[in-house]
């Protein structure tokens, strides 16, 4: 309590702290994010088009799997995104539970549907790669099974959030599930190392370089980068809508709506 009073008495705050405090205020967050969401979409579309041109039009087929290698420009970036979005959701859920910041709560909850979409893309693209390459659409090995569990975790978070009427209470319960589910992340990542799986091992590691030829690797990395912008743009769009819905009767929401063309 004493420290709190001390902070309030301070005449000037650090610029970064001030910025974070501002972001925590719904009207300010709504205005600020609204300005650059279109730019995020634009960057995503530009980067994705470039990556797909390099990968699908210019890029080579694989020496062994032929044309079906082209599915990895979708599968691998989506798989990385499905893990990264879960991690970011879990971290935000943690912050939301300890500090009870409403914006962070909303951001964590709005991450779940986007993560679920990427998990679905990962699973379907992977399955459609597996048929021509392995000879089967699906096997119950450790990698595929743990990625499927990730989908169920996302669906669990979404379901729990929607099942409870009071939004703050719902967010608290769903955040806890999101945090607990994070134990699945290292399991997915290391599954190909810890157990014999049909799924191949990692081709790219942060420290050890990669075993993918540059002509295939670069479009994949560009796509993986592009997908982050999709996540950001989509997340902020969703969070803004959530804020409007939750603050239905507040003055700032009415101002926002009045300013829009009817």
């Amino acid at each position, binding site marked *: 309590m004493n420290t709190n009073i001390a902070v309030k008495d301070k005449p000037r705050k650090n610029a970064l702290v001030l910025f974070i405090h501002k972001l925590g205020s719904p009207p300010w967050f709504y205005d600020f994010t609204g300005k650059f969401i279109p730019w995020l979409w634009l960057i995503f579309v530009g980067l994705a088009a470039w990556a797909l041109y390099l990968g699908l039009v210019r890029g080579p087929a694989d020496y062994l799997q032929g044309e079906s290698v082209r599915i990895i420009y979708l599968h691998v970036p989506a798989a990385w995104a499905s893990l990264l979005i879960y991690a970011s959701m879990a971290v935000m859920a943690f912050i939301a539970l300890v500090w009870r910041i409403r914006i962070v709560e909303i951001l964590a909850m709005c991450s779940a549907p986007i993560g679920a979409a990427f998990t679905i893309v990962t699973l379907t693209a992977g399955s459609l790669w597996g048929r021509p390459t392995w000879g089967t659409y699906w096997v119950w090995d450790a990698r595929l099974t743990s990625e499927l569990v990730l989908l169920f975790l996302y669906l669990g978070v979404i379901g729990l959030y929607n099942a409870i009427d009071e939004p703050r209470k719902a967010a608290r319960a769903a955040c806890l599930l999101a945090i607990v589910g994070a134990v699945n992340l290292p399991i997915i990542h290391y599954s190909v190392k810890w157990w014999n799986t049909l799924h191949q091992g990692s081709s790219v590691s942060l420290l050890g370089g990669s075993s993918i030829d540059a002509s295939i690797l670069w479009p994949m990395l560009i796509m993986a980068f592009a997908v982050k912008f999709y996540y950001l743009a989509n997340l902020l769009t969703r969070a803004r*809508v959530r804020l409007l819905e939750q603050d*239905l009767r507040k003055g700032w929401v009415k101002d926002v709506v009045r300013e829009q063309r009817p």
Partner: protein
Amino acid sequence: MSHLPFIWAAYSIGTVVLLWCAFAPLVRKKSAVRDIRRLIQLEEPARDTDT
């Protein structure tokens, strides 16, 4: 066996899922804005009759 149908299928499904995920919040926003407009009209009837 030709692999092209698998590539087409993978990219089609991927595009549909990601497009749907991107447009779903816009639909929600539309209905939220409609609700808020109705609220405004209920609370401020005088404003409408003035203009």
